């Protein structure tokens, strides 16, 4: 396995971050366009790398935390691209590109080596299904937090009577950001739910029980409940806008903290501890 691909993807994401940072001004959309292109390039490199490693592993190459990070970076970049291109939200690039870069850098440091192939009982069609669903959910929650950060920034400026230059069409309205946040949360919640269900089915097929209360399972349940409450509060109490944005970020820190903590502590099957 060649770590050069991770380095190339990292370089693309880093350049993309720079482009988005220096392309913030309303008259700099060309620079931001380069940022988008580099983000796409980074995602493409990630995909090639995943295919190469996947062929070696004969499955989705996510046996260790370090191996799974490029997959997460790629999903974040792709969903970010969807938001930039389809939803007209280039401002999110300033969040997406650095996150993808940091994930790639972490992958480069942790290394994508180590065990590539899972132990025989775990080699199953459920692996790509379960992991892809879970990571899609994580990526969407991550982007929801990013959109919420944007929301809070713009909101603070509007409250302080220092709005952004009035005609920069690239500035999304608060309503737009709030709705995108809601959509991301909704889809992320669907993905997380399906990931939990598919994980349970896979566990039952492998070990004969759906749930074993290992740390990742418990924390997933906690975050699932938190996100459910977040969506519920919007739909019933009408918590939207600033409050929804702040809560989205708060809940995401719980998710990110538990995911990183558990992955680095190597506890349970999810931490790469299969023996």
């Amino acid at each position: 396995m060649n770590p050069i691909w991770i380095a190339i993807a990292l370089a693309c994401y880093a350049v993309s971050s720079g482009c988005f940072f220096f392309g913030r001004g309303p008259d700099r959309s060309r620079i931001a366009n380069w940022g988008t292109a580099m983000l796409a390039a980074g995602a493409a490199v990630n995909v090639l790398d995943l295919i190469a490693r996947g062929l070696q592993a004969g499955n989705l190459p996510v046996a260790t935390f370090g191996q799974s990070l490029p997959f997460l970076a790629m999903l974040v970049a792709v969903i970010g691209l969807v938001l930039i291109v389809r939803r007209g939200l280039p401002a999110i690039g300033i969040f997406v590109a650095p996150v993808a870069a940091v994930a790639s850098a972490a992958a480069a440091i942790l290394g994508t080596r180590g065990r590539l192939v899972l132990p025989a009982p775990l080699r199953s069609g459920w692996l790509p299904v379960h992991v892809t669903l879970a990571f899609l959910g994580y990526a969407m929650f991550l982007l929801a937090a990013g959109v919420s950060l944007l929301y809070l920034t713009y909101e603070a400026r509007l409250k302080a009577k220092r709005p952004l230059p009035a005609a920069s069409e690239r500035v999304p309205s608060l309503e737009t950001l709030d709705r995108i946040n809601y959509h991301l949360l909704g889809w992320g919640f669907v993905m997380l739910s399906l990931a939990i269900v598919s994980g349970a089915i896979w566990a039952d097929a492998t070990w004969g029980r759906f749930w074993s209360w290992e740390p990742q399972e418990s924390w997933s349940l906690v975050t699932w409940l938190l996100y459910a409450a977040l969506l519920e509060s919007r739909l019933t109490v009408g918590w939207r806008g600033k409050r929804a944005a702040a809560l989205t970020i708060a809940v995401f820190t719980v998710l990110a903290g538990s995911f990183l903590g558990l992955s680095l502590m190597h506890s349970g099957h999810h931490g790469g501890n299969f023996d």
Partner: protein
Amino acid sequence: MDHRLVILGVNHRTAPVKVRERLAYAEDEIVPALSRLKLAAPAMLEAALISTCNRVEIVGVATDFPAAAEAALGFLAGDRGVAAESFAPAVYRFAGRDAARHLFRVGASLDSMVVGEPQIFGQLKLAYAQAVEAGAAGLILHRAFHRTFSVAKRVRRATLIGHGAVSIGSVAVALAAQIFDTLADKTILLMGAGQVAELVARQLKRRGVEALLVTNRTFDRAVAIARELGGTAVPFDNYRPYLKLAEVVIGSMSVERPLLTAENFEPIVRERHYRPMFLIDLGVPRNFDERLNSFENVYLYDIDDLGQVAHQTRSSREREAEKAEAIVNQELEAFDRWLGELGLVPAIKEIRLSIEQLRDYELSRHRAWLAGLAPGEQVRVEALTRGLVNKLLHRVLAGLRSNGQVVGDGLYTAELARRLLCGEPELDAESDEDDDDSDDSI
């Protein structure tokens, strides 16, 4: 015999509207007017007529500018039935580089009443098209207008001059656009009937707002305003249920104490489920307590806040205008260079060079065969081709020279000869790019 770009006319700075309106042409009057101008002022070799609400200008080409200008002004006075003395002091005249600069600045919207407004671009396109239709545009006007359009595009691409709101109304609309995705499904409540408030409501309405509620202390007045703006009048002593419906509230009532206070507004926010609200306070004294701004998802801007935002945009526009002026100056250099290269002498030089090159090329193609000839024969071939080229050149040049002296449009003949004998010059190289998005700014 110098052909120069010339401009004369009046604009919003030199003449008040009561002068401009009497000189103005309707759109369909321009082509016939250009034909009449050609007869009345033959010294104007090419001409276009720009008539907008801010300016009436004749852009032309002349060799004798004072005479052409007098004739054109006389034509304008006669054609419009206005005494020449009544507007002559307001007329500005530019020739050569100054005329090109003026035209570029007009196109870049630097000479507009609201600097950066986009309509002028379409108006210039129309004026040019009409000049072409009237057969009044020639070599220099083609070039001048095409350069003007590309300057305008460069300015729009490279600066923010067309961006940003300047009036209170447009600031309010711009802010609404930063809060709300679309205004189409929003409700506005207009409280009171201040002039600025009415203007803001009108602008928001133009941006697609469907539901406009109007309330006033005197109900009849509310009904009148509602009818004028296309809204619905609601009674003032029972406006609170309507307040709950509104996303945008414009206040301009004369009050001693704020109409909406933190205490009486709080239940409304709660009943609205904290959906965003944009409060525009145009009243002096203010209609809305400033503490309302601290409510969740409520954005309160009073008249000073709006003025401050407008001011920010205005000063950023001035900075952008400086950038635009720099672009105009760059392009001016290029246009000047092109004009300087027009004319007989450079054309003759270029034609001679081109034909000599042709001879060299043909000789080099047959180099192998030539090398096989006896030295004496080689010299004869050389002499034969040179003689042929010289005779041809002599005829062309003699024709050009006499033509240039006799007829006024020697310039065009020279350009034509150059095109025929040297291939297309760079004139049209950029006109394709100029025409790509002709309608985007109207």
